[in-house]
Each structure stands twice: as structure tokens, then as C-alpha cells.
């Protein structure tokens, strides 16, 4: 099958690409010209440069394509402003969907759990796949939710008019390469373990999903009959707070010791029941393979690598 991945260098796209490398699909990617050098497996894929506002490039990218993985969506405010979110997520998706009409049989989009109604309080748990949608939060978070809901609607409505089948994945917080949120959390906790209290208050309960698990979920959603035209929640298994992150970091850095000073604190702050239950994926046989500890191990390994290379550079590089 001819497959297109948009946004192949992103937090999700690179893992979808990786998962596709284990299949016999012919893969093409649609990417911004200035991130082409960061695409993996360049010897095995076709690349079409362009952006989602460019109709001609979209037509070229979609030529002969039967399956689309749309992961070229942007998320983290406040670094990205609302107009940009609207431009890329809502208008970009609309353009892509328009260009799809015809050959594409299934359209897999990776949206976010951010589109759901607020679900911070435990009385609403566990949130499942078909919970109501409502953009919420402060204006920039709201802008993200709105742009994603508009993008989703573009896909739903195209499917309604018979353009293609869809699968709408909505992952919780994503861990993995290029996931600044979890990297920042861990970095902050390394610098100052006492930040855990504030971070716990701010983010409360999280249920991270690793990119590899989103990759397998996306591939499953691409051809599983029960996931046809479904909105699908994607979430790891463990509900964790910043204290759990701290406790797991300590465990990783103190292998063999049992006197984890954060274990009790972490357990007290953990409600003990999951926030998300990805019912549809579980029914389809999907199980996340990466635990929260695996995710943190990966981040710590990466940070160590950065630290070990950065010692070769002066802290301050003078400009002539």
C-alpha cells in the first residue's frame, strides 16, 4: 500500500515512520523543506517537501496514496501563538483533507486528549474514547483545543461525505524523542527536587504515552475494522504525578538501593486509579509497552549524553 506520513520529524510522526519501517508499505513523507535533514530512514522512503498551505505540493504528495497518517500538527503553547495553531492545525488539516479526495481509503490523524472536556478532577475518571469535546483552559490552551477540534471536524466531515474512512487518535502527554514537556519536567526535577510540589499542583495526574506505543496504535488504527471511523484515546497504563517522576528518577539513579526517600511521598500523592482508559485500543489488543520508568530512563540517558558532549564546549562562546 502507498502510505503518506505528514510531519515525519515530529514527536509522533517519527515514531509512526519507525513503525512503518517494519511493514511492507511504500512510504512517502510530506515535510517542511527545512526539516528534511532530520528525517530518518531517508534511504527507504520518498520525500516531498512542502507545507500544508501549498496546494500543489499537497497534490504531489498525495498522488497515488491510499493511506494517510496526518501527524503534522503543532501543540505546545505558549511557544506557538494562536494564529499559528489556527494556520497549521485547522487550515493545514483542511487543505490536506481537501487534497485527499479520491484515492485515499483511510485517514489516520493524531490529535490530542486536549480536545476533551476538562478532566483534571478524579470524579471524572476514567476518561474514555468518546468523552465530550470542549476547548478549555487559558486562552492559549483554548486556542490549541479549538484548532484541533476544527482540524478533527474537517476530517469527520470529509468522512461523512464519503471521502475516506478515518481514525482519530487522541494521545495523552507524549514521551519520547522531541517531547519537550517531559524533558523539561525531568530537567526541572534534577535541578531542584523541591520543584516537585509545584509541578504536582500544576500538572496533577498524568498518564504518559511513549511515541513507540503511539506508533503501534496508529498502525493498528490504520487497518483494524473496529477502529474504522472511531475517535480513539491513547494513554499509557500508569497514572503518575511529579512526585512519581522524582521517585522513579531516584530509583533509576540508585539501582539496588531500597531506601527511596520519595517513594512514600509519591504514593501519597497518587490517587491510585487511572485517569484515562483507552477502551477501544485495549479491545483491539493494543497494550503499551513503555512504562513511565522506561520513559524516564530514556530521558535521563539523553540528558547524560548532552551533558557529556557539552563539557567540550566553553559555557560562553565569544563572538568576534
Amino acid at each position, binding site marked *: 500500500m502507498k502510505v503518506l506520513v505528514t510531519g515525519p520529524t515530529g514527536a509522533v510522526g517519527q515514531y509512526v515512520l519507525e513503525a512503518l519501517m517494519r511493514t511492507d508499505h511504500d512510504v512517502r513523507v510530506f515535510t517542511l523543506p527545512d526539516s528534511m535533514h532530520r528525517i530518518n530512514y531517508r534511504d527507504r522512503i520518498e520525500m516531498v517537501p512542502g507545507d500544508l498551505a501549498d496546494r500543489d505540493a499537497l497534490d504531489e504528495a498525495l498522488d497515488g496514496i491510499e493511506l494517510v497518517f496526518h501527524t503534522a500538527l503543532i501543540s505546545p503553547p505558549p511557544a506557538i501563538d494562536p*494564529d499559528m495553531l489556527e494556520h497549521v492545525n485547522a487550515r493545514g488539516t483542511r487543505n490536506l483533507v481537501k487534497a485527499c479526495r479520491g484515492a485515499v481509503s483511510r485517514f489516520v490523524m493524531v490529535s490530542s486528549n486536549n480536545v476533551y472536556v476538562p478532566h483534571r478532577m478524579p470524579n471524572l475518571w476514567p476518561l474514555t474514547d468518546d468523552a*465530550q469535546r*470542549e476547548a478549555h483552559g487559558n486562552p492559549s490552551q483554548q486556542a490549541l483545543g*479549538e484548532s484541533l477540534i476544527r482540524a478533527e471536524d474537517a476530517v469527520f466531515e470529509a468522512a461523512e461525505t464519503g471521502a475516506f474512512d478515518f481514525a482519530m487518535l487522541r494521545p495523552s502527554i507524549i514521551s519520547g524523542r522531541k517531547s519537550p514537556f517531559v524533558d523539561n519536567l525531568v530537567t526541572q526535577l534534577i535541578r531542584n527536587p523541591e520543584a516537585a510540589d509545584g509541578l504536582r499542583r500544576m500538572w496533577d495526574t498524568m498518564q504518559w504515552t511513549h511515541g513507540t506505543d503511539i506508533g503501534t496504535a496508529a498502525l493498528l488504527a490504520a487497518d483494524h475494522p473496529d477502529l474504522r471511523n472511531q475517535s480513539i484515546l491513547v494513554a499509557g497504563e500508569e497514572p503518575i504525578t511529579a512526585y512519581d517522576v522524582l521517585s522513579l528518577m531516584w530509583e533509576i539513579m540508585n539501582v539496588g538501593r531500597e531506601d527511596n526517600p520519595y517513594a512514600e511521598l509519591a504514593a501519597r*500523592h497518587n490517587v*491510585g486509579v487511572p485517569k484515562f482508559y483507552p477502551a477501544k485500543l485495549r479491545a483491539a489488543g493494543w497494550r503499551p509497552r513503555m512504562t513511565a520508568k522506561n520513559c524516564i530512563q530514556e530521558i535521563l540517558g539523553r540528558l547524560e549524553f548532552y551533558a557529556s558532549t557539552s563539557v567540550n564546549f566553553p559555557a560562553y562562546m565569544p563572538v568576534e
Partner: protein
Amino acid sequence: MKGIITNAGCGIGARLADALAQMRWEVEALDTGVAEVGDAAALKARLRDADVLFVLELHADLPRAAREDRIRQRLAAAEAAGVSRAVLLSSAEVYADAAGSRGPVRETAPLYRDEDGVPEAARIALGAEQAFQAGATTATERVILRVPDLYDRTDPAALAPLRAIMFEGTAAAAPLPLQRLHPDDLSSALIAAARVPAAGGHVFNIADPMGIGPDVLAYELQRLGRLLSEEDPTDDRVRPEYPLEQPVLATDKASRLLDFRPRRSAWIGLAECAQEIVFGLRADGLVPDNTPKVPAVIAALESRSRPLAGKVCVVTGATSGIGRELAVILSRCGAHVVAVGRNATAGAELLSELEERPSCMPGEFIAADLSAMSEVRKLADTILARHARVDALINNAGAVFAARKTTADGYEATFVVNYLAPFLLTKLLVDAIPAEGHIVNLSSEIHRRSGLDFSDLFSSRNYQPLEAYARAKFANMMFSNALADRLGPEGPRVATISPGMVRTEILNREGAKDRPELAAMNRARNRMISPEKAGTYVASMLIDPKLSGLTGIYVDQDSLSDIAPATANREAGAYLWSVSEALVEMA
């Protein structure tokens, strides 16, 4: 490795089978259908190449004697088939004097003797243990696990005592500390008992190493009950530090020999059970419903309930900003939208969006520049020629001009676009609006900071863009109040709404950069709400049952707000009305 599970149909059996399968064991279930009595050969054949027999008969719904017979028979078959190990799930009820014991009860502590006065649960477990040990040879090593109750959220019998404690407090709790085990951990204990070589022939207590006393148990269950059912349980969010109790069962043997420690703490087990109890209470209506409260407009859009089906809604300024989003929202709610704007290209784009999207209803576009009174009249004529009835008129078009500008009629543009044009359009269309129809004027909180200078309505003495805008919105507000008075409680509903600070281009028109106050406001764009959100606020005036029946109201975003007293002055309102009538006549 191959494991055979007897009585695999019980919840524990299913979990164990799952856990074994994940470890790539071959798993087979041996259920009631097979070899009831006397078919020893068939049973032996089934057990032939198995490595471990898991005996879960304690949880089978059988008379005591039948259960014991069955265990005896299966063990005999296992011996004959050369199964190297058998693991029995027994109960911690077997210990005779757990309450009187000084320290935690070890595996060697005295058991009940088979006499009168032995609790039924202990009698059953003892019988099972005896049957399991009967005729032991060296062929099959036997391991017994003595386990307390489980935190099994799927088992009503496990929940009932916890539910009673949640409601009645300490009084309902047993006097001994609770040491229940999480069902997932029981599977890992069974697997450890099957695998660890040194375990053969031993008896193990398998329980949570920590004891939860009755007071703590009651407090914690009630805290969880609040945490999992209330909307804002901030006070109960973090589990307090509880005093520790000495456990009833000693668990160190399992920890040393089997290397088994529960992975899931008792607190997780309790929380899961408490959540299940709360689900039950919610289903019975004893705990508040947790269906999220979504604004009426969002609910209508998401469910496609089309509350405005068949209604004609006129939206001015519908080619950009709030008006454009509002037109789409109303259309998605089923309305026939008459969009009014200056930009014909943008109007055509809007129409094609309404046409193409399956969620929208087709609409129409009328190009008109509302700054000219003649065009307003022409617009009203066109609308009335096409529609006998207008269900809603939304005077959305508004503008801020960086430099003072006069219209073709010679009036100041801010005043005309924000006030005079809506005044005239409303007057011309009001007879076509039915009693249950709506007139919605867009305003801004900024009107509160201003007043009206009748001697200088056109700001000719000192032009400040925002001041001119505030005055026009003040006049608009005063007009709305006067209109609501004239139409009365039985007439069409009149409402004014301030959508808040919205990410539109209103502050970003030509020349805005030369005005520091406008540029500064425009820089705060990222903190403003989206035009779409503002559109839902405006649409709620027609859709939200809490607002759509009211007239003469002022709404700030999504909440009813006080009307500024200055705008409700009747004399001034009447005077403004007559002046406005004269102005539109003269144009």
C-alpha cells in the same frame, strides 16, 4: 513451561491465565466439565506434559466434600502424570488465634482443629489443605499459599464490607488490621510459588506487608469516597500520613524464599474498590452526576441537535472576525444565515464553506457597506423582499478607526458603524421579527468607562479612537435598553453582549500602528479569546435556555451582568432616539 489451572473460570483463574500467557507459558484450563469422578485416566492424560498444577478450587461453588474429593483426585492424577509442582490457593482464615497472637502470625502458628465452633471459611480452607496434602509422594512438590481477602473490584462480596465501612465508619470495620492483597499481585505470587525451586513443600502467607487499622481504614475510605465523587476535592487530594499498625500475617517468608513483594500497594487496591463503590452509588443517584457541564452552544454543535432549524438569522459583519465564526456556528445549529458584509470575496468564501460542510445549512450573502445609511435601507429592503420573517438580527459589525473618518453622509464613522447603522437596521427590520425572535447587539465592557456628549456626538473636538468607540458602544447600549422598553416583555427579546477581548483584526486596521494604545492592545493577542469562542457566547443568546427567554439583558461573555445605570436613563434614551431618528432621516 505449561501450567494447568483448575477452576480457571473464577476471576483469579482468568487473571492468572493472562499473566502466564504474557510470560509465554502454555496455559490450559481444567474446568468442571472434565473428569468429575472416576475418569482418572482422562485426567492423567490432560496433565501429562504439564509442569505446574494451579489448584484454585477454594473459589469453586461446591459442597465441602465434593471440593475435597476433587482436589484429592486431581492431585492423584498429577502425581501419576508426573507434574512436578502443585500450588494450592488457600486462605489466611485457617489460623486459630490470629487475634490473640502477640506478633504477626507465622506459617507455623497453630491452625484450627476440625471441631465445632470453627468458622465456615476456615473449615473449607482446612479441608482443602488436607485434601491437597493427602497421599503426597516425592513426584509432585506441593506449595500452599494462605491469602487474605482481595481488593477485587469485580467481586461484589469483596466490595460489600468496604462499602459498609465507607458509610458507617469504624463501627463496621473488623477489629483486626486489614491486610488485603491486590488481585494482580496474587497472580505473581502464584507464579513465584510455581517457579522458585526452593519453594517446594512450603506454606506461605501471601498478603500486603502493611496492616491498615479500622480507624485508618474508615478515614481513608471516606476520603476516597469524597475524592472520587466531589467536583472540587482539593482538601482530600493527598493521602495523609497514617499511623502504621502491626500486621496480622507475617509475610517475610514469602519475601525471603519467593522474593515476592506486592507491586501494588494496599492504597491502590483500596482506591480501586472505592472507585467501584462510587460508580455504584452514582448509578443509584446517591452521588452527584459527573456528566460534564458543557455550554449549551457547544453541546448543540457537538450533538448536531440543530436548535435553530428553520430560523432566519441576519448577521452583520459576517465576513471576518466574530461575525464569520458566528455565521458558521448559527448555520451548524440549523439556522438559515443571511450574512452581511462589505467584502464580496470573503462573503463568497463563507457561502461556499456553508455549502460544502455537511454540518452546515446553506446560507446567503448580501454585500453592503453599513457606513452609508442608504445602503442600510437597501439592505433592509433586500432582506424583507426575500424573507417575510427574520428570527434573529445580530448587529455584530463594529469598527475602531485609528484616525477620525467621516462617512459619505458626513457623520463620524465610529459612531455610524457601531451605533447608527444598527439603530436604523433594527428599526427597519423590527416588524419582521416575531415575539420569540431576538435582537442581539454586540457591545464591549469599555462602554462603562464612557458616557455620551450630545453636544459632540461625532467627536469632532478631540478624537481618541477608543474613546469614540466607547461612546458609540455606550449609545448602542442606551439604544438597546430603550428598545427593550418599547418592545416590552412580550415583544422580541433584546440583548446586548460583550464578548470580551477577542483575537480579531478590529485593533489591527490601517493606521493602528501609529496609535500606541491600539498597538499595545493588539500585542496582547495571545491572551485574548478566539473569534470562535466569542461566537459561541453570542450564539448562546439564541440557544442557551437560561438566556434566550430574557429581554433587556446585558451579558458579559457567558454571565448576566449589571446594566450601567447611565445607559438606562429613560430621558436620555428618548432624546438619543429622537436625535438618531433625525440623523438617519437627514442622511
